[in-house]
C-alpha cells in the first residue's frame, strides 16, 4: 500500500538544475572579475603653455634602468622629491618635467611621475627633445 506524505513536497524547483546554473554563474564571475586597485594619472596632451615670468621647470631624466637624474646627479625618488620641494620653496623651479631617455620604459617613468607628484609641484611628461619626427606607434 502506498501512502503519500503530504507535508514535505512543497518546493517545485528541483535543486540539481538550480545549483548547476548557480555554479556556472559563480565560475563566470570568479574568472571575469578583477580586484585590481586601479589609479589614474592625468597626462597633459601639450596644450598648456608656461607663463613667461615663471622660473624654469626642473628637468628630471629617467634612465633605461629606472634611475632618476637631476642636475647631473642620480638620486632616489624620495631624495629627489625632498630636494625639489626645497627648490620650490626657494622659488627656483615652478614645475617638474620628467624626461625619459631613449631606452627608458613606461614603468620607471610612471613611478617617477607618481613619486614627484607628491611634491605638490605640477609634474608633466616631457616632449621628445631630439626625435620629433619619430614615427607614431
Amino acid at each position, binding site marked *: 500500500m502506498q501512502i503519500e506524505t503530504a507535508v514535505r513536497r512543497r518546493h517545485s524547483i528541483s535543486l540539481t538544475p538550480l545549483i548547476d546554473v*548557480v555554479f556556472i554563474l559563480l565560475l563566470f564571475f570568479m574568472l571575469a*572579475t578583477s580586484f585590481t586597485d586601479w589609479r*589614474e594619472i*592625468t597626462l597633459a596632451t601639450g596644450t598648456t603653455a608656461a607663463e613667461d615670468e615663471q622660473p624654469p621647470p626642473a628637468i628630471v631624466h629617467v634612465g633605461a634602468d629606472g634611475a632618476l637624474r637631476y642636475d647631473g646627479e642620480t638620486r632616489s625618488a624620495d631624495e629627489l622629491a625632498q630636494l625639489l620641494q626645497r627648490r620650490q620653496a626657494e622659488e627656483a623651479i615652478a614645475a617638474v618635467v620628467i624626461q625619459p631617455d631613449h631606452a*627608458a*620604459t613606461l614603468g620607471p617613468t610612471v613611478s617617477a611621475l607618481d613619486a614627484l607628484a607628491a611634491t605638490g609641484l605640477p609634474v608633466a611628461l616631457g616632449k621628445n627633445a631630439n626625435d620629433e619626427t619619430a614615427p607614431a606607434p
Partner: protein
Amino acid sequence: MIVPPPKRQRSLDDSILPLINVVFLLLIFFVVAGVIARQAPFDIILPQTMRTETRSVPAEQILAIAADGRLAFAGEPIASAELDDILATWPEGEALQIQADSDLPARQLNPLLERLRRAGIVEVRLLTQHQSR
C-alpha cells in the same frame, strides 16, 4: 497507520541546501565586490604607482597599448591608421583613458599624445595599478 517519511530523499535535499546557500553567497560576493575586467587582446602589465590617490575603473572605450606598440580600442585590435577615424568620433571635451604596458618605451607615448591632441582630446588619463607600500 503511521508511515515514516522516505529517509533518502530528505537527507539529500537537506545536505544540498547549505551548499546552495554558500554558493549563492560566493556568487553575490563576486558580483558586488568585483569589476568585470575588459581584456585587451594582448597582455598588458600596468605600470605601478604608490602615491597616486585618484581611483579609477577601466572604461569600456579604453585605448590599450602593448609593449611593442600595438594598439587596441575597446578590446579590439586596431591598426595605427584606424586610430584617427576612431578619434574623429570621440565626444568633445571627454577624457580618454589609456592603458599602456609598463615595458613600452616611454618615448613612444609622446607621438601618440601629439596625435590625440591634434584630434582634439584635451585630457588623457593613464591607468595604473596601485601597489601598497
